[in-house]
């Protein structure tokens, strides 16, 4: 019996040893799930990135004029090292949409000796006079400033506000330079409103003459409209301010723009009350553009104004429906700290968008 036990144990040991050696141990499990790189990108980054950088080398293929001016972060990063110091700071402002006021001595400081090669747009000065010296802001001058190469920053301002440090909300990005001047966003030529908020456009001395500085409207609604709708929709970021007082900026110095999500929020609120006229849904041309003015509490200051009157009766019906919707939906819930930006807004009522959304 002992020999049998020994033989059996020996046989088992042999088999187990053989199994340990020859049976392939399965390789460790590698999770079949491949990690997906996900970037969390605030919508602000897209809606706020609008301008291009003049310094950027023109790409061999000219971009179509309607191409989005947004630049990806990577693009900007790559472009930065080429830009001189003064330039490199400017794009950063646009990158960070945070409302913390960053004192920028970009344009407002009169003694700024360095020529600013980029057009800095929308400078909103903080209400508190941070900078004691009155910096004359430059009047917005569309078009390339050819002679501004060495020109110092101080530009004449037409607004007597105490010059605060202008905050640059939009800095031109090193977007692929477009051979043709980017389409200027319409700005309202309304006379200066009593509220001394100004959109600042600075004509900057541009080393790259091929790109004229773009005029931007008050806030990004323009951009969004231009980018998404292809329908001219002017943002009313500045109420009644066609005046662009460069260097002065907005009374509230926070770096703010209405983002697409906020525009969408407004649009969603409106669409809840809107019953588009039946029968014109497929017309496609029933785009009603309304100019809305808001009070800080979200109510309308005045009746919505139709911006694109049309003689057709059916269009007038649609316009009336939109106007009713806007009136019946108030008050609107919009971020109060950005009141300056949605104080006056142009909204498109497109039956397709409204219903589809």
């Amino acid at each position, binding site marked *: 019996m002992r020999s049998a036990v020994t033989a059996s144990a020996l046989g*088992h040991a042999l088999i187990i040893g053989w199994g340990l050696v020859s049976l392939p141990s399965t390789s460790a499990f590698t999770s*079949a799930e491949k990690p997906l790189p996900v970037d969390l990108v605030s919508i602000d980054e897209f809606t706020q990135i609008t301008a291009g950088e003049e310094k950027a080398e023109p790409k061999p293929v000219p971009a179509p004029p309607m191409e989005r001016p947004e630049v990806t972060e990577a693009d900007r990063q790559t472009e930065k090292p080429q830009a001189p110091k003064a330039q490199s700071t400017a794009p950063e402002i646009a990158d960070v949409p945070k409302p913390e006021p960053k004192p920028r001595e970009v344009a407002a400081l009169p003694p700024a000796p360095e020529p600013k090669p980029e057009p800095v747009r929308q400078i909103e000065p903080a209400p508190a006079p941070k900078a004691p010296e009155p910096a004359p802001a430059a009047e917005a001058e569309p078009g390339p400033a050819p002679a501004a190469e060495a020109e110092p920053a101080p530009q004449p301002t037409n607004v007597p506000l105490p010059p605060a440090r202008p905050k640059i909300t939009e800095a031109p990005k090193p977007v692929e330079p477009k051979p043709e001047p980017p389409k200027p966003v319409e700005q309202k030529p309304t006379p200066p409103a009593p509220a001394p908020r100004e959109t600042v456009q600075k004509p900057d001395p541009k080393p790259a003459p091929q790109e004229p500085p773009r005029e931007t409207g008050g806030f990004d609604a323009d951009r969004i409209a231009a980018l998404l709708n292809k329908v001219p929709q002017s943002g009313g970021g500045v109420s009644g301010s066609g005046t662009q007082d460069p260097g002065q900026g907005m009374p509230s110095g926070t770096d703010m723009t209405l983002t697409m999500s906020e525009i969408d929020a407004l649009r969603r609120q409106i669409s809840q009350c809107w019953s588009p006229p039946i029968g014109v849904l497929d017309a496609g041309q029933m785009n009603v553009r309304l100019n809305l003015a808001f009070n800080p509490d979200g109510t309308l200051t005045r009746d919505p104004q139709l911006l694109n009157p049309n003689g057709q009766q059916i269009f007038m019906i649609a316009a009336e429906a939109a106007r009713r919707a806007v009136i019946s939906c108030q008050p609107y819930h919009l971020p109060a700290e950005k009141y300056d930006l949605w104080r006056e807004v142009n909204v498109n009522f497109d039956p397709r968008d409204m219903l589809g959304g």
Partner: protein
Amino acid sequence: MDATTLAAPAAEISMLGLFWHAHIVVKLVMIGLLAASVWCWAIILEKVFVYRRARASLDRFEGNFWSGQSLEELYHNLSGRSTTGMAALFVAAMREWKRSHEAGALSRAGVQSRIEKVMDVTIGREQSRLEDRLLFLATVGSAAPFIGLFGTVWGIMTSFTAIAASESTNLAVVAPGIAEALFATALGLLAAIPAVIAYNKLSNDVARIVERLEGFADEFTAILSRQLDERS
């Protein structure tokens, strides 16, 4: 193996890894099944040789018995040593015959019945000797799958615990526990299958040997009975 080690993916999936990462209960089950397997194979090997030897001795004794040799002579040859199988049967019967004969037994029927009794006892002893430990094979064959299943269930339980702990049903979380659980079942089957097969074969062998012994006992009883008749 607690939940954390289970949750750690890429536990080594080899035989050794499966064993070392197992819960202590599963480990005990595995060790027990392995020991049972070793013991089963030891029994199988031993029985195979024992039965082969038993059959060989049966053949040899039958050759001697039917060779025309004198039974007295054969008895003298065999009685000196310990015998098994048919020889033990023959020796026991002859001893009883001689005792009855020497005592001058009066009753022929009494002698015959005593001889049969002695042979029955010897056959029973031989059978129990042959069947020794064969029951263990039967036990392993029927119980080992359940024992392995117990280890499997335990391993699956730990797997689910790992799922609950890691809140992930990722295969890498579940697989090690399931693998070790199935390893326990595999060991159980590994022990049970040879045990069942061997038990059936060996018990059949025992039945045949016992059958031959009984046949020889009947024949020898007939021979002795004829002798009694001739003497009386």
